[in-house]
């Protein structure tokens, strides 16, 4: 039999203002609240609310046989609470069906897993608390920011008591193996669920591509591909951004119609069903242990860290923000710490990516800057202003010099 496991990521960063060099020292507001508000409202309207409605309806009509899972970043939840609270209500309804699982991630959607184990730990605990507070749900499965994963991260998460973890089904790790089985990370008792990137990206990226040989993609055709996994796998892990439904793939391209019909088409084949990550983990044994010595992510073709750390600007910016950890903690100032964490959100570094700048594509979606250079300039000016603030509040005379 084939169990389809859907996981949707919901995230919106707190985008930064175009901070000028002359503002350094003035401690002006770093965040573009106007832009962030308008974007979250737009996405809530075009995507979150309509998709939630459809999914709730599908759960009810299939008598709970349709199941999905989500994780929402803490910073996205904060913005929803403030600007689109009906979305929170709509998620509560979904969780209430018992057919929807929520996963944990880092509250501020950061790459702390690479730079600071303490931060990583704390940000996850913050997230856990938030999910409990909003949805009365205790996540047992974890996914890291942008599915960044390696053996070390798995070990850390295992020690924190999670039952399972998600990762990208990257070819260079899997080699001859299939992502359609449950695996075990190295040196920890958890279970590992790997994204089937071909089938996931068929929906998330190729759905409206007229040049794609499978265009147009119908629910029937897609369900057929899923059924083919029968005998060659146990789970089909479809992991994607929630904005696929209504933002990346527009409503008029038929994405909602596709979603509406998919469960029925999948369930037509009697051997198929839907599972949440926890159910998948419970039902299926791990077929093998997988070694991920290097970082893998779900980004771009490379499936590595190059989207955030590929150029010197990104490397410098991220190094500088984590250098401030000691100072910021010394201050014991919650507002300062919170602000520091908001500056760690991975999107800030994503905007500085020069990889595909010549073509201008996915990286440009919701990118508030015209160029990666503008992104870096704004970030560094803010960082330098923040550094002054942190120095003052922590009375830290060992503060590293402002870059001159």
């Amino acid at each position: 039999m084939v169990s389809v496991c859907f996981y949707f990521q919901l995230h919106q960063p707190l985008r930064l203002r175009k901070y000028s060099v002359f503002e350094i020292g003035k401690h002006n507001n770093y965040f573009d609240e106007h832009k962030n508000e308008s974007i979250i409202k737009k996405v809530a309207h075009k995507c979150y609310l309509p998709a939630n409605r459809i999914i709730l309806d599908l759960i009810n009509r299939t008598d709970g046989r349709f199941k999905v899972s989500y994780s929402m970043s803490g910073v996205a939840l904060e913005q929803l609470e403030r600007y689109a609270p009906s979305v929170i209500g709509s998620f509560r309804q979904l969780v209430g069906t018992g057919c929807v699982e929520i996963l944990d991630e880092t509250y501020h959607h950061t790459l702390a897993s690479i730079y600071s184990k303490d931060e990583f730990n704390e940000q996850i605990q913050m997230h856990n608390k938030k999910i409990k507070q909003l949805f009365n749900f205790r996540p047992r499965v974890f996914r890291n920011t942008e599915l960044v994963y390696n053996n070390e991260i798995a070990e850390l998460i295992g020690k924190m008591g999670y039952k399972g973890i998600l990762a990208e089904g990257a070819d260079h790790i899997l080699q001859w193996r299939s992502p359609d089985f449950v695996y075990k990370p190295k040196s920890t008792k958890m279970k590992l669920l790997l994204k089937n990137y071909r089938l996931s990206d068929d929906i998330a990226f190729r759905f409206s591509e007229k040049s794609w040989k499978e265009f147009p993609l119908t629910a029937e055709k897609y369900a057929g591909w899923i059924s083919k996994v029968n005998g060659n796998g146990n789970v089909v892990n479809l992991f994607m951004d929630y904005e696929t439904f209504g933002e990346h793939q527009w409503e008029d391209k038929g994405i909602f119609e596709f979603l509406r019909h998919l469960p029925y088409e999948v369930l037509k084949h009697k051997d198929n069903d839907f599972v949440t990550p926890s159910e998948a983990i419970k039902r299926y044994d791990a077929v093998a242990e997988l070694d991920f010595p290097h970082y893998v992510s779900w980004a771009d073709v490379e499936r590595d860290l190059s989207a955030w750390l590929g150029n010197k600007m990104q490397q410098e910016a991220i190094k500088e923000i984590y250098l401030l950890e000691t100072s910021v903690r010394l201050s014991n100032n919650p507002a300062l710490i919170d602000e520091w964490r908001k500056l760690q959100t991975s999107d800030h570094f994503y905007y500085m990516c020069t990889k595909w700048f010549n073509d201008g594509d996915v990286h440009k979606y919701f990118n508030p800057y015209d160029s990666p250079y503008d992104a870096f300039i704004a970030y560094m000016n803010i960082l330098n202003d923040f550094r002054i603030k942190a120095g003052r509040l922590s009375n830290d005379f060992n503060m590293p010099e402002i870059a001159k």
Partner: protein
Amino acid sequence: MKVLMFGWEFPPLSSGGLGTACYGLTKSLSKKGVQITLVLPYSADIGYSADIGDSGFIRIIPAGSIKLRRIRSILQPYMNSQGYRKSMSKSQSPGIYGSTLFDEVYRYTLAAEEIAEEEGFDVVHCHDWMTFGAGIKAKRKKNKPLVLHVHATELDRTGGHPPNQHVYDSERDGMHKADKIIAVSKFTKNKITAHYGVPSEKIKVVHNGVEPSSQSHYHDESHDENFEIKKNDKIVLFLGRLTLQKGPDYFIYAAKKILEHQKNVKFVIAGSGDMETFIIEKAAELGIADKVLFAGFLSQNDVERAYKMADVYVMPSVSEPFGITALEAMKNKAPVLVSNQSGVTEVIRHCLKADFWDINEISSKIISLLRYKPLHETLKENAYFEARKFNWDVPAEKCIEVYNELTKNF
């Protein structure tokens, strides 16, 4: 394909981008087998160190298929009537020349008509307003299609101030009588459709290219003694004509603002023009005269050295149809900041941009570029590779497409 081309600037007699563009384009066209007869005004008295020779032909491209004809005229594209009268008084045979700039254009046009009589050609191709009259005459003489190549319009040159009516009229007349117009950017094409009453189907955008690097040896961080610059000074470069269109005044105001926040910066202004005195006086007035160095008009070699020395190249143009200098700077590993009001921004991505009037943004970006080493390095590297992709082959190909399209119907 035989082309009768009318221009007025050509190296070594260049004072701006037009000579560069004409040279690059004709060289590439010639390589592709297009036979070009390039008509240029002849000016012996202007003071450029050029050796023109007595043969009546300007042999700049050896053994190429370009035949060059001179017209005796002291026509210079950027001179206003005042400047013209000044240079006329220096000229050795005043009796031959007409008494105003526009008389010169008229003479050029007449002489061109003679040339058109003698030459064989399939297409007429002329560059900017002074040659449009000549182009129209040539077109009429042999009933051949006329291509107008617009590198700049009077509106660009006067940047918001009232244009010279006669020049504007010449441009407009030419554009309406031409069979096809080539514009060096969408920016310029839009100006033409908006202000000259030309339908957009008549205009083809052909972005300029840039010459491959000369063989000069590349030094890293070579700070030239001649410019009196200390080793730890940053250099912000302005290279262009000191005239309204190029925004040298915005450069000076930005310099002032930058120096308030950062001391170890020197501003080098390379170029000459009608605003030279104004800029010198303004620098003194703002109290930054010791940080602003005037290099004057530079030779091609010195231009490249200036780019290589610069930490930033700034092009704050008020209205720039293209802006080849941005590409040249990038090729010489100088990161650039260009104004949004320029055509080159349509084809480059690895640069910083700002509105020409936004002194705060310009200054903030320059300071950021000087302060943050990773930004400087990343921008410099990527810009270098981006600029290397530009050449004159693509523009030449597009011109040939235009020639073919036009000659089909004639």
